[in-house]
């Protein structure tokens, strides 16, 4: 699938055009992409995610799915089957008496047979590391926050979307739960699902995304690979946005005279670079 945004704008104030939630955004989301969306609260992140999922319509500009404009309502309903969206705190939308019923809700609504539904529920649960035997008949409301979040996501995956949209998927989880969910999202993407993820965590974005969009006050500010985007550390900082911990630590070391390569965006990249640099150093010391 390919989702093309062309000079997309959106305003919540239909009568005045001076307050744009999103302005002039052009973007192409291809199959297999993992887009990380960065920006402060109010930068237009959530508006963008809702536009992508077809929940709101652009005020101007176009949004095309595989070459077809999504202006027509008929196409929009097709979109819903192909794109899954998880809002912030998706566990607040859990409602069914059991985990299995909650996850299967959308599949039943889509008219799948009971056997197919059950099959889909099992698959979705497996993808989110939820053991069917252990969880399917329990109430979602007696699970921990991290477990509830995974149940809610399974309820979206049950429709087998080609594109998964996630708004701050790890907010409010403890570090262990955060790490676990990040692994799950990584596996979903490796399994062929395209992902668009808004996050305040530069670490998560650097670790998972292969494309990054930075929004500032509704406008696209930077767009590119993580290495391209995080190269602009100073510009990001002027907008109170950071770079991943690894890169800001690396920048400090560079300032102290260590000749480290640019764009060390993950802990492992930094550790590898340091190990190489310092063992080289030891080698040359020996040679002297």
């Amino acid at each position: 699938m390919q989702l093309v945004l062309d000079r997309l704008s959106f305003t919540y104030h239909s009568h005045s055009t001076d307050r744009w939630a999103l302005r002039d955004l052009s973007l192409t989301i291809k199959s297999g992409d993992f887009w990380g969306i960065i920006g402060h609260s109010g930068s237009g992140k959530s508006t963008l995610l809702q536009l992508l999922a077809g929940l709101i319509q652009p005020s101007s500009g176009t949004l095309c799915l595989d070459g077809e404009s999504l202006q027509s309502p008929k196409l929009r309903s097709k979109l819903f089957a192909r794109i899954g969206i998880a809002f912030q705190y998706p566990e607040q939308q859990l409602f069914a008496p059991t985990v299995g019923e909650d996850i299967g809700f959308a599949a039943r609504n889509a008219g799948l047979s009971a056997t197919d539904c059950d099959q889909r529920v099992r698959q979705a649960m497996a993808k989110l590391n939820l053991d069917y035997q252990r969880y399917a008949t329990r109430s979602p409301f007696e699970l921990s926050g991290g477990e509830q979040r995974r149940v809610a996501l399974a309820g979206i995956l049950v429709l087998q979307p080609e594109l998964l949209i996630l708004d701050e998927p790890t907010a409010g989880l403890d570090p262990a739960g955060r790490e676990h969910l990040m692994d799950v999202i990584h596996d979903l993407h490796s399994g062929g699902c395209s992902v668009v993820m808004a996050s305040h965590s530069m670490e998560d974005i650097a670790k998972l995304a292969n494309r990054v969009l930075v929004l500032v006050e509704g406008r696209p500010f930077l767009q590119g690979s993580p290495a391209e985007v995080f190269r602009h550390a100073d510009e990001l900082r002027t907008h109170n946005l950071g770079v991943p911990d690894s890169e800001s630590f690396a920048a400090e070391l560079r300032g102290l005279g260590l000749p480290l390569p640019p764009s060390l965006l993950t802990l492992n990249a930094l550790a590898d670079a340091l190990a190489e640099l310092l063992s080289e150093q030891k080698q040359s010391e020996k040679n002297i």
Partner: protein
Amino acid sequence: MSREADIVFEEVSYCYPHSEGGNLPENRCQGTTNAAASTGAGTALSEVSLTVERGEFIAVIGANGSGKSTLARHINALLLPSGGRVLVVGFDSSDPNTAFTIRSHAGMIFQNPNTQIIASIVADDVAFGPENLNIEHSELVGRVSDALDQVGMLPFAEADPSQLSGGQKQRVAIAGILAMHPDVLVLDEPGAMLDVRGRRGIRRVVRELNASGMTVVLITHFMEEAVLAKRVVVMDGGRIALDGQPAEVFSDPDTLRQLGLGIPFSMRLAEALIARGLPVPQPIRPEELKELLCSWY
């Protein structure tokens, strides 16, 4: 008057009623004996003893479900212990007559700023608490503007709270507590729903309040917030697992991982470097690690 501790927990146990879908036998969590407290599956706190002195700044960390929030809710008598005793500025929370006194001494900030704002004008919202304490109007006006000033929100006194950012709303909520002139401020993951900038603002306010003498209890998932405190209490399975200065508590990455906690960046990097054959000592602070790496080059 002697300067007594602001918060005292004496072997406090707590069990949520109707946990496990109401299947839990009532008597299972009401006893104060060890057996009762340690076996109940719905037990959120097991014999927690803790003393927080006046003016202390403690951070409480722990995995989801470790009992952090339950502990916090005991400090202003939102929850009463199933066993043991909680004293807040000398008042026993189990005495039904003291709940209001305790709450005027110990104020609480929750995760979601939207659920804590009730008025349509910022200043009115801040005035709500002290108004209920029957503070005279002239004093009330002063308290409101002082409180808003302390959190840097005085310019927004006449604003509509719904137009504010999450971080600003959270600071208004803090002002609402400050206007009641409490001794203790309890914050339950105040930054969980905020962006980096919002969190930074809250952190600055909390530090300043503590510097001016306020006792602060900060419940958090963010390790960089926990290290601001002078003392860190780690909860695990309803018990206190660790209690000490940040440097002590964050000394062993394996223990932290077992407790479901995050590990500070410098220690994670040190681990990765050790795995690559570089002899880095643990625990290590960022400054020490930088110095060490430069000395090797």
